């Protein structure tokens, strides 16, 4: 009679061993019940040493343990951290989560905090999707305090547990603390003045004509300044008229410098003026005013009117600060438009080179 061992051929034994060996990785076992999250992080609000901090916890469950039902989320802080053991302080929120993240289901105020084990345990319900990043925030007041000394790679972990406190997923994480986690930003806004001139030439739209007053296209000047006293602009003229070298003649400017009213040109009567028009008075700033002698709108026919040009700087416009509430002296885009206007008589010498050169200077007030 053969024994049991004698009846089993050695080949069968070898085959069985091989099959078991191949199938072993796919069999459930107590050793691989806990897996790592696909993704997990703990982002503390503060990294500065010895500072109270809250934080955000996010995790994406593993595929292998998705069937397990979570009942807790446990955060294990570094041993250098100090935890307030009043669980009621560890309140949570699910606002301001990262884009694409979902509020952690069933998350609520911590149920247990142990400063000896450095753990805080929060309630949770099942994390149902392995493709979802679940997140929540815990409060910063009277919860965790960072390490006393600066250090890197301080070990911590995020763990999910089932209702029997068996680990489902767990990911170790490392936290660092610095002596300071803020950057003090200082900046100086210097007093400045910006003047923009839309062009450096200004052409008459048509040839000058004894039957009409002809104007240039106009050039705008824009002012931006944080000067509390506002701004001022002056103009001076090279020829005090339109000058022709070929004709050796100057079509003279008209009126009186510094007059209280602008001058209105008459077709057929020689004259040359510059009109200054308020185009934009930017809000919340100083009040723009055009000097009366350059303000063509003071005349019945503004498109024929303007101010007398001088060889010395004459104020053409300004922006005056007032002492309202709040005081207003700054300008954020005031615009004035300068247009030259000319009239000739029937005997004005012909010439193709009539021209003038006007200098406009702007400044923040003193």
């Amino acid at each position, binding site marked *: 009679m053969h024994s049991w061992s004698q009846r089993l051929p050695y080949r069968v034994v070898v085959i069985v061993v091989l099959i078991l060996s191949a199938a072993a990785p796919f069999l459930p076992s107590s050793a691989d019940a806990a897996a790592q999250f696909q993704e997990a992080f703990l982002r503390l609000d503060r990294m500065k040493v010895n500072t109270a901090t809250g934080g955000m916890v996010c995790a994406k469950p593993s595929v292998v343990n998705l069937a397990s039902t979570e009942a807790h989320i446990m955060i294990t802080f570094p041993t250098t951290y100090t935890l307030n053991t009043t669980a009621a302080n560890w309140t949570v929120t699910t606002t301001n989560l990262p884009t694409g993240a979902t509020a952690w289901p069933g998350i609520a105020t911590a149920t247990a905090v142990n400063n000896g084990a450095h753990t805080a345990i929060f309630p949770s319900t099942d994390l149902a999707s392995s493709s979802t990043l679940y997140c929540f925030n815990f409060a910063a007041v009277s919860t965790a305090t960072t390490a006393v000394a600066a250090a890197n790679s301080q070990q911590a972990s995020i763990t999910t547990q089932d209702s029997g406190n068996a680990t489902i997923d767990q990911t170790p994480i490392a936290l660092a603390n610095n002596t300071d986690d803020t950057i003090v930003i200082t900046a100086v806004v210097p007093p400045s003045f*910006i003047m923009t001139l839309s062009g450096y030439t200004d052409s008459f739209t048509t040839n000058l004509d004894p039957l009409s007053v002809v104007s240039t296209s106009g050039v705008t000047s824009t002012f931006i300044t944080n000067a509390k006293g506002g701004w001022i602009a*002056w103009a001076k003229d090279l020829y005090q008229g339109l000058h022709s070298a070929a004709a050796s003649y100057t079509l003279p400017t008209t009126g009186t410098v510094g007059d209280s009213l602008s001058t209105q040109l008459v077709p057929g009567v020689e004259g040359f003026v510059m009109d200054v028009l308020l185009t934009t008075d930017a809000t919340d700033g100083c009040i723009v005013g055009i000097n009366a002698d350059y303000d063509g709108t003071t005349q019945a026919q503004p498109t024929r009117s303007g101010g007398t040009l001088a060889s*010395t700087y004459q104020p053409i416009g300004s922006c005056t600060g007032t002492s*309202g509430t709040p005081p207003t002296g700054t300008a954020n885009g005031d615009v004035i438009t*300068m247009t030259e206007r000319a009239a000739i008589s029937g005997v004005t010498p012909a010439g193709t080179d009539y021209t003038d050169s006007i200098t406009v200077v702007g400044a923040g007030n003193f």
Partner: protein
Amino acid sequence: MKRVVLGVISLCLAFSSLLGPATAIAADDLHPLVLETSPLPISLVADPGTTVTTDIRVKQAGPGDAKLQVKLQKFGAFGDQGKPKLMDPEPGDEFVKWVKFDKTEFDAPANVWQTVHMTISLPKTAAFGYYYAAVFSRVGDDVHRDNRTNSIAGATAVLVLLEARNPNANRTLVLKSFASIHRIYEFLPSSFNVSLDNTGNVHAVPHGDVFIKQNGKQIGVLPINAGGGNILPQSVRIFPAKWTDGYPAFQDVLVNGSVKIDNKGHQVQALSWNAGGNNPFSKIRMGKYTAELFAVYDNGHNDVPIEATLTFWVIPWRFLLAVLVVVVLVGLGVYLMVRGTLRRVTHRLKRLRRR
């Protein structure tokens, strides 16, 4: 030999044709001007016989590179508004010769700050106030143009106020007037002008407030010269103040972030009944008010107070008239109704008596 000379000349001509124009920036290549300067204004104090320097920063915003220049002008006070008047230096202005710039023409790449050092060497005879303007402009903007075209040269000026210390410096401000634009306002704003005359020989800075009161209770404070503006010696400067805190009040009409401008180029305002705040009734402005000016200036030894008081009225007479008309009409209606009823009753009583 001739062939050699001709050959050399030809080569020179060919080479020269490859070179650009003589100037760095041709006038036709110039762009619209955007100039930024900082700081502003600059106040300097120095002893006679010493040297004082200051840095002025300038930037042109392009779009291309440019060559900038700085020229020295002087300024004084213009009219009674205290606005600066820019002036060309005159032959007798020795103080202009004290000033040197470390560069007067310089390349200015777009959007790159350039710093110009301004050095003022005061002679031992220097005393009191000197007023400069450093004027920055683009080289080539003021050249002659062609047919029918004027050249417009833009520039920005940085005003520099220099005080040469002197024991005889006299800083005296005199209140020339403290006035309300109107004695009676229909609606706010109420506007005031504080006119101060600097009768001294150096510039001075006043500051203070206008306190608005009604029945002794303060209801508004209007800062005077919050910007710290100077009054040049022997000149008058007017500091305006505007009381807008209340309703009904005229306010600027805004269009796209700017004050609406009418076809005559003037700011457009409209009456606002928006009280704002939690207690709108406290902001209704009506009745007699007092404006009390309290300002001070430093005369070099101590603060000197300047005080004045005026009264003004806010009477929205058209609104009150409309209310009065409504009240009168309602009263008249009630009167006519009562009179009619009385007549009917009297008439019935008479008929009853006759029966």
